[in-house]
């Protein structure tokens, strides 16, 4: 078996090396393609050995003489056994020489880290995958909370949210409801991942392969077989010790099966397609607008505050907010800014959102990265793997190649086509439309909408233009207040003039607790771009330009043991055009 790139796979050379009867000589196989390879290998041994003809592919007297010289000097063949042909020992030795001359394989470097799908690493029923076992090693070490700040679980949790604000510029920094949401979390994960890797590399419990390639996995929950919390995070014990990836403060049904209302048997809680669909974010462009969220959220200053225009982008609502609240429920960590990053699944959830940003950047958002200095030069502070304070800028994290990692899969999710517009073969990436003016209301509910029981409806007259241009249609759900998170996530559905209601979006209410604090800047508000939906219904003759009708209903099942539902009040629902 030949191993050099030069020789391996050559039929004749393989047969000779395996002590076959064939030879290369001036009379046998003297113009076989193998001859050129032998000549090249001889030149590697001695670059001056074929002075007249070089590697010309013909076994002439110069090559024959060179082989004799090779056999004498390199193989120490005694003069009485010398033939001027190429036999097994010559091939094998030349193969070794060619192999040794090859450039060494690239050492694993930062470019090579690949974040992988947690369900593909470890499907239900499979043993704990080494990548997840290594993650558990890192989380266990961090949770000791014994090292310098960057080596503690508490620090990483507080970086996201902390009350009161310690004012150190490092903690309580999470960016939500705005265009910094994606880059800030990308930096946050990248720093955390590097620190985990440093711990893993030091650990005696992790094998060398895993040490060399470890990267944070991601949880892609938008497939029918991945809608439950990944198995490695549900087990209270790991190898006879407490499992650091387990977190008891999660919603009913997340860690173990429970009985859901009106169902025959207990089961694990499962995300429904409404909570994970790409339908909302996939078609959104451009990256951001000053007054409406576009893809990534409105253009604000630091934090989820400071302007009446702070609104999350569609990706930040679904799946981001939906999955947070799905795992956390009313009492769990994932529902709370100050505790969310304390649940080890947080990092896999955000790795997936970071991946979906990449999906968008490579498809609908191709070439639409923000370019203004308010975005590009905006920096945030983090601690790196050595504990040094670093200040990456948003511009520096746009390209994953600069950060040294990639995702195993950035193909467009199946749910992106739900609703039909992507089936249109004429549809390509949309040119971004400049939206420098705020959208204008064309109708709104004239009283608050209360969400209680099974459903609520809202209906109002609208002043939409009689002739349609390329207006953008937005549904705004504003000033949401509640004593607590509801047991189910509510969906908003547009009621066409005929046929079934169509999903506009869901209201995860992630951030509700923060919005209820006495110093909170805002109540929660959402905006949904329904332009595609309106165009489709209009084409089908099912869009009423004079009247807006919507229904609201829970999208997922509620456990039998759930607490009574709190009051949720929506201050305003409005239809806007731009």
């Amino acid at each position: 078996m030949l191993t050099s790139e030069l020789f391996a796979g050559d039929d004749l050379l393989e047969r000779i090396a395996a002590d076959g009867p064939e030879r290369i000589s001036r009379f046998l196989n003297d113009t076989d393609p193998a001859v050129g390879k032998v000549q090249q290998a001889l030149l590697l041994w001695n670059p001056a050995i074929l002075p007249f003809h070089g590697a010309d592919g013909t076994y002439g007297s110069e090559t024959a003489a060179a082989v004799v010289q090779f056999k004498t000097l390199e193989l120490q063949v005694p003069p009485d056994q010398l033939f001027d042909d190429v036999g097994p020992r010559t091939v094998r030795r030349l193969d070794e020489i060619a192999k040794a001359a090859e450039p060494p394989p690239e050492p694993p470097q930062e470019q090579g880290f690949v974040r992988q799908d947690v369900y593909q690493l470890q499907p239900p029923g499979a043993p704990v995958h080494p990548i997840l076992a290594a993650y558990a090693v890192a989380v266990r070490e961090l949770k000791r909370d014994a090292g310098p700040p960057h080596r503690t679980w508490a620090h990483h949790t507080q970086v996201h949210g902390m009350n009161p604000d310690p004012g150190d510029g490092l903690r309580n920094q999470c960016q939500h409801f705005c265009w910094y949401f994606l880059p800030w979390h990308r930096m946050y994960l990248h720093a955390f991942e590097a620190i985990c890797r440093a711990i893993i590399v030091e650990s005696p419990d992790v094998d060398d392969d895993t040490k060399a390639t470890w990267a944070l996995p991601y949880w892609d929950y938008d497939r029918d077989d991945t809608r439950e919390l990944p198995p490695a995070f549900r087990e209270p014990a790991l190898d006879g010790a407490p499992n650091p990836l387990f977190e008891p403060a999660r919603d009913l049904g997340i860690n173990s099966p429970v009985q859901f209302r009106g169902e025959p048997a207990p089961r694990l809680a499962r995300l429904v397609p409404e909570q994970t669909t790409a339908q909302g974010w996939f078609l959104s462009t451009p990256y951001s607008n000053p007054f409406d969220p576009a893809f990534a959220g409105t253009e604000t200053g630091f934090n989820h505050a400071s302007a009446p225009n702070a609104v999350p982008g569609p990706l930040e609502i679904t799946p981001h907010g939906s999955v947070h609240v799905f795992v956390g429920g009313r009492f769990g960590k994932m529902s709370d800014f100050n505790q969310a990053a304390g649940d080890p699944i947080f990092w896999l959830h955000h790795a997936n959102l970071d991946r979906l940003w990449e999906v968008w950047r490579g498809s609908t958002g191709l070439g639409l990265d923000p370019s203004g200095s308010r975005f590009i030069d905006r920096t945030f502070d983090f601690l790196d793997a050595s504990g040094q304070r670093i200040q990456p800028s948003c511009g520096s994290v746009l390209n994953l190649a600069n950060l040294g990692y990639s995702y195993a899969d950035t193909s467009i999710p199946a749910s992106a086509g739900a609703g039909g517009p992507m089936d249109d073969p004429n549809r390509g990436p949309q040119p971004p439309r400049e939206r420098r003016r705020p959208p204008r209301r064309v109708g709104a509910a004239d009283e608050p909408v209360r969400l209680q029981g099974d459903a609520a409806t809202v209906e109002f007259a609208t002043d939409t233009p009689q002739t349609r241009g390329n207006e953008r249609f937005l549904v705004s759900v504003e000033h949401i207040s509640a004593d607590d998170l509801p047991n189910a996530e509510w969906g908003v559905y547009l009621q066409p003039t005929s046929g079934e209601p169509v999903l506009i979006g869901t209201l995860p209410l992630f951030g509700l607790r923060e919005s209820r604090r006495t110093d909170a800047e805002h109540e929660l508000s959402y905006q949904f771009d329904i332009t595609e939906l309106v165009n489709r219904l209009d084409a089908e003759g099912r869009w009423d330009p004079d009247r807006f009708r919507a229904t609201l209903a829970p999208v997922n099942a509620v456990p039998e043991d759930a607490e009574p539902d709190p009051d949720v009040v929506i201050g305003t629902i409005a239809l806007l055009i731009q």
Partner: protein
Amino acid sequence: MAYQDHLLTWVVMVPSMMLPTTVPHVRYVGFGTRAGRVQRSILLFVLGYLTSWLVPGLLLAAVPLPASASVLAVSALAAGAWEMTPVKRRALLRCCRTWPVRYAGPAADASAVEYGMRHALGCMVISGPAMAVLMLAGHPWWAVVALAVVMAAQKLLTRPQRWRALVALAWLAAGLAAAGVAAFG
């Protein structure tokens, strides 16, 4: 100066200093209502806003002006201390908070007035003490300009709570200066 004159000063001073800081909210109200009635809603917002500010004006105008240097010193120091209270900090954080605006009809009228009043309440927590000191000092023009700039910045810049200590120090300096005048002037 007579009561009416004091009140007149207040009525001129408050709108000219405070209304510019409400621009983001005026826009919000304007964009929230039906196209044909934008001006009406904005007018109602301003009405609600200024009516609320009139209440403290009615009381302040009864104080003989300008106040003595010692009263000024005490009130400036109090205004400085107010800067550092959690109440002021919270109000600053909440000052960009919006309220539901109705689209048309009487509901829209009522919501605009209510919005103006609610927002005025927040502004009074933020700027009320400063405005009172300014009034007591006999509203010298340079102080009016300086304070207008500070208040606009506090309301319109992001994270104003970060430099409220600086504002408090400025008040401390003003208070000490007034105390100096009271003692030696």
